[in-house]
């Protein structure tokens, strides 16, 4: 039994190391995302300028106030969109920074877990000096946190699915816009069309980068799902070890509260294993959704490229 406890601690240490590695990969992805958001913001500013020029040009052709108002509103929305894109880039940078901090903390946790495993292995047996009631309370709190994390993961999956639907709609929108690209007639129209084409080319580059990042993200999600699977297995094994450990603790328990707490220990360990199993399942779904997202973004990059080529062709 004691050997098994040492094995569990060793497994946990291995998992913690893997978690630290995944966290490092996440930092790479987040940094790339932040850099891409900056590029997106730059292109959004350029696009807003082109839309503003287009608005000036279109305003002269408008016959009704409704038409004129719509043209102005489109330009204003583009301008505001550029501002929002700038803000998004700032937030993305902040996210990359906090994810980096998280990776550092996870690495520290891996070190602490390794030390614990070494101690358990060296001693082959450890006697807890801790209060069993306090320990059980702590475990209960941990299970509650994990349950909340699973719910959050489920919500994330739902959001990601909605994001995929949004991307699919955007693909269709780009395809429709590609069909509608008109040949410029006047010199002013030609100037705007050329600038528009340049923006579209940049958008295509961004879409390609975005797809590559999503692919990398999907890979990380897959690795994470595998890790959650391992964690769930460890939790199952731990529940078995706890069952045996409880036999020893039962002998030690003196007060009624201690006896109740010892009884609850197994129940909590089993609940912990069940939650870990559910977390692993959700992680698998999250990885599948991430893969789908990468596919859709690849398709988006493709249609965006086609649109850029069409705009370039017509602008010449």
């Amino acid at each position: 039994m004691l050997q098994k406890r040492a094995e569990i601690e060793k497994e946990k240490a291995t998992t913690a190391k893997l978690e630290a590695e995944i966290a490092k990969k996440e930092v790479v992805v987040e940094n790339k995302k932040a850099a891409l958001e900056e590029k997106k913001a730059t292109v959004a500013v350029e696009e807003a300028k082109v839309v503003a020029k287009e608005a000036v040009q279109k305003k002269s052709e408008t016959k009704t106030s409704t038409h004129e108002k719509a043209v102005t509103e489109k330009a204003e929305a583009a301008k505001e969109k550029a501002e929002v894109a700038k803000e998004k880039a700032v937030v993305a940078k902040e996210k990359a920074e906090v994810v980096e901090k998280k990776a550092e903390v996870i690495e520290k946790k891996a070190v602490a877990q390794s030390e614990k495993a070494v101690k358990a292995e060296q001693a082959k047996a450890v006697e807890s000096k801790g209060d069993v009631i306090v320990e059980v309370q702590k475990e209960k709190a941990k299970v509650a946190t994990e349950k909340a994390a699973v719910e959050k993961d489920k919500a994330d999956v739902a959001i990601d699915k909605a994001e995929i639907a949004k991307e699919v709609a955007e693909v269709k929108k780009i395809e429709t816009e590609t069909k509608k690209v008109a040949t410029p007639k006047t010199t002013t129209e030609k100037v705007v069309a050329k600038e528009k084409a340049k923006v579209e080319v940049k958008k295509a580059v961004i879409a390609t980068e975005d797809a590559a990042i999503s692919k990398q993200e999907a890979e990380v999600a897959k690795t994470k799902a595998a890790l959650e699977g391992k964690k769930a297995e460890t939790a199952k094994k731990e529940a078995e070890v706890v069952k045996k450990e409880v036999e020893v603790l039962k002998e030690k328990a003196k007060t009624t509260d201690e006896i109740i707490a010892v009884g609850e220990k197994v129940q909590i360990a089993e609940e912990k294993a069940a939650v870990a199993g559910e977390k692993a399942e959700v992680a698998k779904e999250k990885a599948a959704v991430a893969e789908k997202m990468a596919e859709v973004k690849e398709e988006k990059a493709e249609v965006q490229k086609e649109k850029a080529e069409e705009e370039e062709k017509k602008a010449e």
Partner: protein
Amino acid sequence: MRMNKWQIIIFVIAISALLGFATVGYAEDEDDEDEAVAEAEEAKVELAAEKAGVANDQADVAEVKQAIAKEEAEIKAIKAEVANESPKVETNNQEKAVASKKS
């Protein structure tokens, strides 16, 4: 906040689909005007979605910060466990007794 973004995304999709139908069956001038109105509406919806996206990203940052606090608490707990545990010999009498009971 996250659900709001979701709702907005669905709204964007719905609006995009509606705008697709809106431009059919008009005369050329009306077509231009209608298209401009549709484009303006689309731009506004896209803007709202982008704003929701930023709010979502900000919520993500807050979540990561929370996760950091959780990890730090776990480190403390692991360290405390290591400090609180003392090695004992494998031939512990109590465990022997449990083992013999089981066998």
